[in-house]
Structure formats: C-alpha cells, structure tokens
C-alpha cells in the first residue's frame, strides 16, 4: 500500500470486543449460520466480529479482558439456558450461536432504554459521532424511552461539573454510563490504578481517586479516553477540530519504545491538522497503548516558535536575516570549503540526530565522509548509549538489545538497573508492570527509589540503592555470587562462550565478593547475594538497563558486565531473557545503525576495513578516509585548539544536552561556521551562523528503528512546512561542495542502505508498507526479521566473557563538594524539552527541581520550594528544592529539561573510558540556599509555561 493510499480515508481499527487468544488449538463454532474457526478460549463476541457478525457492545473492547456488565452483547447458544453475554462466553467446538433472535433484541432494547434514561439528548459526542450511545440505540431499535430521557446534561440524575483540569481531555460524568472501561484501561493497560467507581447502583460514578484528574495519580496516558465508548472522556481537540477525516499510520518521535500511531487528521495538504494520535493495535512495540507524550504532546509541530525560513548572519552577535534556500546552502558550502582550504579537510564535521529518520541520518554521514572528505561525524548517541555499542559488540558481536519488547511477558525475574521506565519508557513500563502483576519478580538496582520499587500492585523483591559510580563493583559482586555459589549454567558456558577460565578466575577473586565491594556499592552483602540468587535461579532472567549504566566513566565496562551476567546464567537466545538497553530517543538505535559514529560505516563496520570501505568507494565514486574521525567531545576540544572550525548540527541541542556547558559554549564560539538545522532556535543556535529550518516527524517520510531493532515507517501527515525535506537539504549541501548527491525519494535512500549493509539487506519501504514493521537482522537468513538475537550462536560466534575490573571514577566527593549529583528524566518532559516545553505538558513539570534527602536538606536549612544553588567544580546553577526520601542521603537528583536551569552547567568533562560518553550520573556537588540575587535571576529567567499551540 502506498503512502497516498494510507492517507486517503479515516478507517478506525475494528474493535473485536475481547483480546485475541494466542497459541490455543482451533475450535469451530457456528454463528448465525456461519462456521468460524478460532483458537479455543476466544469469546463468542470476538469470533462473531471476526466472522463479520456485529454484536452490539458497550463495556467490551478488545484491549481489555471481558467484564460482562453492560448486557448489550447477549446472545443465545443452542442447548444453553438464558442469554449469556457473548464477551464472557468462550467458544467451544460445535457451539451454535444466534445473535439476532427476537429474544436478544428485546433484551438489548430494554438495556439500551435504561442507559438512555440517564444519557442527555444534547450529548455533544452523540452529535459529533464520538459517542457510541446514539448509533447503538439506532442499531438495537431503541426509538422510544419508556422511562423518559434528560433533555440536557443538567437534567441527568446526578449532574457534576465537567472536569477540565487535564490540559488534553475533559471528563463529563453526565455522558458516562459507568461501563468501567476507563477504570479497567487505567488498571490493566496502563497499570496506574488512578481511576475507580465511587458509589453504588444508580449513584455510581467514575472518580479519579476522589479528586480531579490533574491532581490525581493519573499519568495522562489517554488509555481511558481511548477506551471510553461515550464522550464522557473526550479529547479537547475533538471538540475544537471535529472528528477526523483520514488517518496516517506513523511512528512516535519521542522515546526509544517507538510506538506506532494512527495520526487522525482533518484536511488535506498544508491545511491538514492532527485531531488526535491513536496508538495502533497492530504496533509491534506498543500494541495499542501510548503515553502522555506520544498521544498528546504533538502541538510543538505547529508552535509559534517554529522557524520556517533559512536564516544567516555574519557574526553570532548579529541579528538573523531571512534568506532563500539557495542562498543559505551556498553560504554553508562556501563557508565549509573556505575553512577546509585554510585549515585542512579535517577542520569541519557534522552531528546527526537521533530524532531524525534513518534516511536523513544516513545522508549526513555520507555527506561528511564523501563531501567533507573525513570521518568527523558523530551523533547524540555519544552522550547516551555509545557504551552499549562498545560493550555489546565486544561480548556478543553486535550493538543492539537482544529481545523484542514482548519478551518481557515470558520473564520470571527482571533485573532493572539504571533505568526508570515508568518515566522514560512508559509504554514498555506498562508492559513490564503487567508481567510483574502476573507474578514475575523484580530487582531494582538504582540509587533512587524509582516508582517501580513500590507502586500499586507492584513491589520489587529487592531494591539495591547502589552508590553512583559503583556499578562495576556491583555487577562483579553479582557475578562472584553466582559463580562461587554454583549457580552458573555450565552447559551454556561450555558450548557458547569463550575466555571462560580467565573470566572465572577474575570473578572468583575475593576482592569481587559482595562483602569486599560493600564499601564501594553501599549495598548490604546479604541483600546483594539474595538478589543474585533470585536472578540466577530464575527459569528466565531478563536484564533491562538505561543511562544509569552507560553514563559513567566505566559505562562500557558495565555493559560488558551485564552481558557476562546473562552468559553466566544462560539467559541469552530465547524469549523471556536477554540484555536489553532501553534507548532514550526514538531513533538512537537507527542513528547508530546508520553509521553515525566516526569510526564506523552503517552496520557497525570499522572505517579501517578495506573491504567495507571498498563497497562505498565503488558506489560513491570517491576514495574514503580510513582513519576514525572526531567524536563530539573531541570536536569541542579541537575547536578550542583551533584545528576544528566548522560544524553542521542536525536536530540536536548540544549547548543544552552536553556536559560542562561553559566548555561547549566556548568551543562553539571558537568556530568560524556553525550550521544548525532544527525546528526551533535552540540553545545551540545562539552560536550559529546559518539556521536551516527542519521538519517535524509529522512531515517526515522515512523509517525509525526502536530499542528492539524494529524498523517502523514514519509517514508524512502533511508536506514539509519549510519547503524542503531534510535529506534534500543535506544532499544539496554536499552537491554544492562538489560531491553530487541526489535521490528521487527517501525510499531510494533506504534501498542504498539495504544494498550496502548485510544486516539490513531485506528491508525496503515496499516491504514495510505491505508487511509492517520488522526487526533487524533482515536478510536471506531472516527474511521476516529477528525478534530474538543470538539464538544458538552469538553474532560473533562465541560469546566473549570479558573480565570487568572495577576502576573507581576520578570524580569524588570532598569537603567542598560533599554530595553526589545524578541526573535523569521525568515522564512529561523529553530530553532537552525542545518539543515538550512547547506543549501543555508544562502543566506537570514547569521547571527542573533538585531532589534532596531530608537529612541533607536539614543540614543546609533547605525546605521544599526553596531556591538553592547547585555547584560543582565546573559551574553552578539555581533551582528549586524538593525534599524527598526517594534519594539516599548524600545523593541529589535533577533533570535537564529546562534551559533556564541548565543542569549541565555543573556536569563535568569526565567520560566513559572507551567511548567518551559523559559521566552525567556522577558529579560531586554542594547545595545551599540561594541568595536573593539568585532568587531574582531565576525568577527573571524562568520561562512562562507555554501552551499547546
């Protein structure tokens, strides 16, 4: 199906009423004379819908287990008494069902009359087509209501004010039929349990825990709104814009979960407006669920701050001047060429973005390697998951997580370390919580008491609050316990791993015992031993990790340590196990896969390999540099040294996101030409000479790859609002610099990627459009993709057990800086906030705050809400305090979503030894009450909360 075909109609996904049953034997039932084969256990309601027989329903929806309360879906079954609800009646072989007898029609009419007796005639949703009551009433033939019907919402039995506290949707109890779909969605799909039914009988009503939605535990995922069969829970956008007229299947542009969405749209071409984002039931990553960012926070794409014209200026102190695309591209090409003429070909480079498509990223690295004639290309993965690339390549042979997300449903024990999925990867967190509620055990290793340590119906078996910087000591102690207590998988180690003797001798050393490492980790030895036993003895033990693993001076070593732990216990190569990096941005995996690192071509092949370079030299008609180029921090250092003078930055805000802001800003100031391509004039643009407007995900045509290696299509909802696609701009810069680059379409770029990279050989737009998303490797050996990696054999052959020596960070506390700062993310904001700060998500997180333990706060006279100075050896900033026991004493925590706070003013130049990934998670700091000057400065600098445009 072509992109155009997919955009042409609004065709909501069919609701089958109850979830699909997988893997059971088939049974045959006859429904209204039609024979239907379904897996045993499938509900009659679902079987009928699959057969094209529509049974009226209200409380049933296929994302939730059957509830059986509304009595609309009643049917008659031959040989059975009464009229059972079809949603709760499983199909049995030979069953004969009738869905349209006079008896069941009467029952439905009577039930509908009761619903209508308290449903207002002036229901906006009914009129608009966003409420099923009116249409269902027509379907079941309820033309008259014997009990009367309220003419307006004020006349319902128990009128309540409309709750409009949530910025994205409203709750109108007058339209509510108390079917509990919202309550069940909040519990079963999202796992938050924020909603409940208050009262009994006719007095019952839905409640957000006795308060309004905004003040409640609600995380605004929107599952309740999606589940609501009436307009009781309704998006504001539906009211403002009306019902959609078409939908476009695309992929979310926020975190690395990579949810599939149907962008529901009104209008065509440049007049098109997104009415709402509906998560796709067939989305491999999200299976119909979403979070507050993906579902609601798309307003930034049309925010007033959006820049739509190219701009130039001679100096960063000058005002911007709007110019044509040709003028801007000429300025870039001439500027870069002049720098190279004077300072050598290595004096310029480029940074690609994990928020851009694979096709956009690929052309950036091609431009750098072929037009710039060097390998000075890097990507923002440098500052997040570059250690994952190094660590998993060394041990397993490739740079990627081992599982699909569905794998967690088969995990028995989950070791979660340095990750906070409920905030950073919320849709996956819901999946994980579902598994935990079903009985899987959880080990959380994190200095901070994250929500998963204890939340409704989820409690970790162990929370190990290890001290920042001690990860490798911790993982060695886990491995020591497993090895010395005889908990290893001997057969797996013997058959599938190498370097066994050296590794076992290393890890058996008493210096790696929980007792010996306790001073470094801060973990009670017996707690650590118990956690190690739990993981090792699980039938399926799965590891999930995040930036709390990678953003350390030993980030790469720690990734290898996690891989070792999985190999020791045989937890690799089947569903339910594995080593799973939770990637931060939507296309971190893809941007790395596409050759964005300065030492690697696409597919993680070193630039020094003659046979790999030869592939590209032949195709591109150009000799290529066999030496690695500069990484991002190396670019900054070289800029200050005067050998690096020109930089193209695609969709990243390095002046806000990268550590040691003063150092970054000094480097940017030192350059002759900084080119920024972005949606907004971000912090980095303050140092730019050329601004090239970028496109939002709603304008892009291409692919993303999520954290489970899944290629997902990104399809344009409307054409580029800046007149060009980003890949075109890059091609034009390269061409203007003397290396002709052109493609007819992004599909052609992916074809080039597939033709030159064995791992992606089988992927194309056509296949993704017709067969749906798929996970790499996709090639002759795995034509439909690879959900689970390293089955039977590692990519590198034998898994390599690498000794992981613990080398403490040089960043230490002192009398001057006695606390350790660690940084992270929050649910409603995303990365540097460029997108989410330009939405109503600011309601939940208008500023970054510093979490500090009560003991540390009391010592300093700090209370919640106080402005405090946060200082390290490289800088200081001011923000508000939140006194909280989530942090252990001695450790403070903040986020980096707001430029006014500038958390990276205090983070240092320390980095992972192997990859230069910054050590964001360990900074020695001091905290004190801010003086009046600081208070005034923050008050002046703090941005007003920007609203959904």
């Amino acid at each position, binding site marked *: 199906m072509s992109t155009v075909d997919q955009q042409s109609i609004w065709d909501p996904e069919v609701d089958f009423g109850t979830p699909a049953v997988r893997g059971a034997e088939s049974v045959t039932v006859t429904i209204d004379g039609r024979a239907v084969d379904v897996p045993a256990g499938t509900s009659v309601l679902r079987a009928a819908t699959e057969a094209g027989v529509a049974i009226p329903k209200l409380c049933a929806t296929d994302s939730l287990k059957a509830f059986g309360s509304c009595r609309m879906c009643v049917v008659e079954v031959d040989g059975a008494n009464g009229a059972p609800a079809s949603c709760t009646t499983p199909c049995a072989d030979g069953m004969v069902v009738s869905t349209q007898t006079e008896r069941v029609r009467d029952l439905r009419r009577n039930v509908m009359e009761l619903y209508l007796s308290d449903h207002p005639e002036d229901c906006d949703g009914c009129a608009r087509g966003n409420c099923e009551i009116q249409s269902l009433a027509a379907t079941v033939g309820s033309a008259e209501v014997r009990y009367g019907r309220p003419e307006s919402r004020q006349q319902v039995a128990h009128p309540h004010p409309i709750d409009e506290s949530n910025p994205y949707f409203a709750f109108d109890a007058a339209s509510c039929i108390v079917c509990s779909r919202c309550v069940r969605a909040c519990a079963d799909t999202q796992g938050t349990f924020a909603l409940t039914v208050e009262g009994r009988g006719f007095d019952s009503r839905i409640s957000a825990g006795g308060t309004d939605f905004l003040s409640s535990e609600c995380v605004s995922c929107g599952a309740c709104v999606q589940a609501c069969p009436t307009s009781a829970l309704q998006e504001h956008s539906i009211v403002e814009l009306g019902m959609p007229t078409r939908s476009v299947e695309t992929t979310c542009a926020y975190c690395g979960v990579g949810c599939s969405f149907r962008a529901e749209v009104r209008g065509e071409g440049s007049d098109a407006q997104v009415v709402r984002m509906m998560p796709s039931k067939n989305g491999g990553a999200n299976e119909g669920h979403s979070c507050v960012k993906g579902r609601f926070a798309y307003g930034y794409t049309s925010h007033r701050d959006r820049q739509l014209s190219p701009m130039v200026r001679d100096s960063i102190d000058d005002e911007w001047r709007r110019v044509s695309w040709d003028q801007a591209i000429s300025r870039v090409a001439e500027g870069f060429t002049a720098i190279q003429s004077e300072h050598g070909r*290595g004096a310029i480079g480029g940074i690609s973005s994990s928020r851009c498509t694979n096709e956009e990223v690929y052309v950036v690295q091609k431009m750098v390697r072929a037009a710039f004639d060097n390998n000075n290309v890097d990507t923002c993965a440098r500052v997040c998951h570059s250690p994952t690339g190094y660590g998993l390549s060394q041990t397993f042979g490739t740079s990627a997580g081992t599982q699909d997300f569905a794998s967690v449903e088969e995990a028995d024990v989950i070791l979660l370390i340095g990750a906070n999925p409920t905030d950073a990867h919320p849709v996956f967190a819901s999946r994980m919580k579902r598994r935990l509620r079903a009985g899987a055990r959880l080990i959380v290793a994190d200095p901070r008491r994250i929500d998963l340590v204890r939340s409704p119906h989820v409690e970790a078996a162990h929370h190990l609050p290890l001290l920042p910087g001690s990860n490798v000591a911790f993982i060695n102690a886990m491995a020591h316990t497993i090895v010395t207590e005889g908990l290893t998988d001997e057969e797996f180690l013997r058959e599938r791993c190498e370097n066994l003797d050296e590794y076992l001798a290393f890890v058996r050393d008493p210096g790696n015992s929980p007792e010996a490492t306790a001073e470094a980790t801060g973990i009670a030895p017996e707690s650590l031993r118990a956690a190690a036993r739990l993981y090792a003895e699980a039938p399926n033990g799965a590891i999930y990790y995040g930036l709390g693993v990678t953003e350390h001076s030993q980030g790469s070593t720690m990734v290898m340590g996690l891989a070792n732990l999985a190999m020791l216990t045989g937890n690799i190569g089947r569903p339910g196990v594995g080593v799973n990096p939770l990637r931060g941005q939507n296309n971190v995996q893809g941007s790395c896969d596409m050759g964005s690192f300065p030492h690697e071509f696409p597919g993680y092949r*070193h630039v020094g390999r003659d046979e790999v370079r030869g592939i590209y030299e032949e195709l591109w008609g150009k000799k290529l540099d066999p*030496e690695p180029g500069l990484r991002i921090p190396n670019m900054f250092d070289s800029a200050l040294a005067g050998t690096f003078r020109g930089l193209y930055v695609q969709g990243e805000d390095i002046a806000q996101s990268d550590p040691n802001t003063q150092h970054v800003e000094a480097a940017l100031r030192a350059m002759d030409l900084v080119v920024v391509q972005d949606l907004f004039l971000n912090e980095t643009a303050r140092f730019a000479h050329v601004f090239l407007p970028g496109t939002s995900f709603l304008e892009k045509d291409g692919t993303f790859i999520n954290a489970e290696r899944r290629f997902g299509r990104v399809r344009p909802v409307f054409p580029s609002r800046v007149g060009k696609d980003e890949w075109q701009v890059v091609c034009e810069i390269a061409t203007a610099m003397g290396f002709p680059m052109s493609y007819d379409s992004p599909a052609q770029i992916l074809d080039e990627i597939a033709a030159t990279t064995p791992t992606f050989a089988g992927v194309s737009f056509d296949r993704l459009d017709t067969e749906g998303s798929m996970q790499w490797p996709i090639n002759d050996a795995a034509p439909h993709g690879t959900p689970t990696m390293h089955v039977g054999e590692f990519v590198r052959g034998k898994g390599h057990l690498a000794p992981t*020596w613990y080398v403490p960070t040089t960043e230490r506390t002192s009398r001057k800086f006695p606390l350790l700062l660690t940084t992270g993310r929050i649910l409603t904001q995303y990365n540097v906030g460029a997108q989410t700060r330009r939405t109503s998500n600011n309601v939940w997180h208008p500023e970054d705050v510093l979490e500090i333990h009560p003991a540390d706060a009391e010592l300093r006279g700090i209370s919640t809400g106080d402005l405090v100075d946060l200082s390290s*050896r490289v800088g200081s900033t001011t923000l508000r305090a939140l006194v909280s026991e989530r942090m252990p004493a001695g450790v403070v925590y903040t986020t980096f979503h707001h430029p006014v706070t500038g958390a990276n003013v205090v983070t240092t130049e320390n*980095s992972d*030894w*192997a990859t230069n990934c910054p050590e964001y998670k360990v900074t020695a700091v001091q905290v004190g009450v801010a003086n009046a000057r600081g208070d005034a400065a923050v008050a002046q600098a703090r941005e007003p909360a920007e609203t959904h445009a």
Partner: protein
Amino acid sequence: MNEHVPAEARMGNDIARQFAHLPPAQAAEAIAGHIERFWDPRMRRNLEALAAAHDDSLDPLLVDAAGRLAAHASGTS
C-alpha cells in the same frame, strides 16, 4: 580534578587505568590498540607530542602506548 589536564592526557589516562591490571607491555599494547581504533589522527599526534615532551600528567602506561603509536605511524613496528 581534570580541568587543567590536556584532553588527550585525561582520556588516555582513563584508558590506561582500565588496562592497568595487565602486565605493562601487554597493557601498553592494548591501550595503543584502543586509541588507534577510536581516535582521530590529530589526537594521536597530540598524545605523542605530550609523551615526547615528558608531560607529567601522563600515566606511564600511556607514555609507553604513545611510543608504540608513534612507531606504528612511522612504520617502525
């Protein structure tokens, strides 16, 4: 504290500390190998210059590795 240490020395020392458990010659070769694989040539030359200037901020293993890098570059090893 690292702020006044040249970047190549700081990053090189970080690498050296990871291989310090190995016998010295083996460690120096591993350090040189890592740097050769991942560092831009100008950074390698900067490191070699620091070593040649007997910069005292360099870990001895890194000094040895820098010598090996220089030898590799000149084709003498």
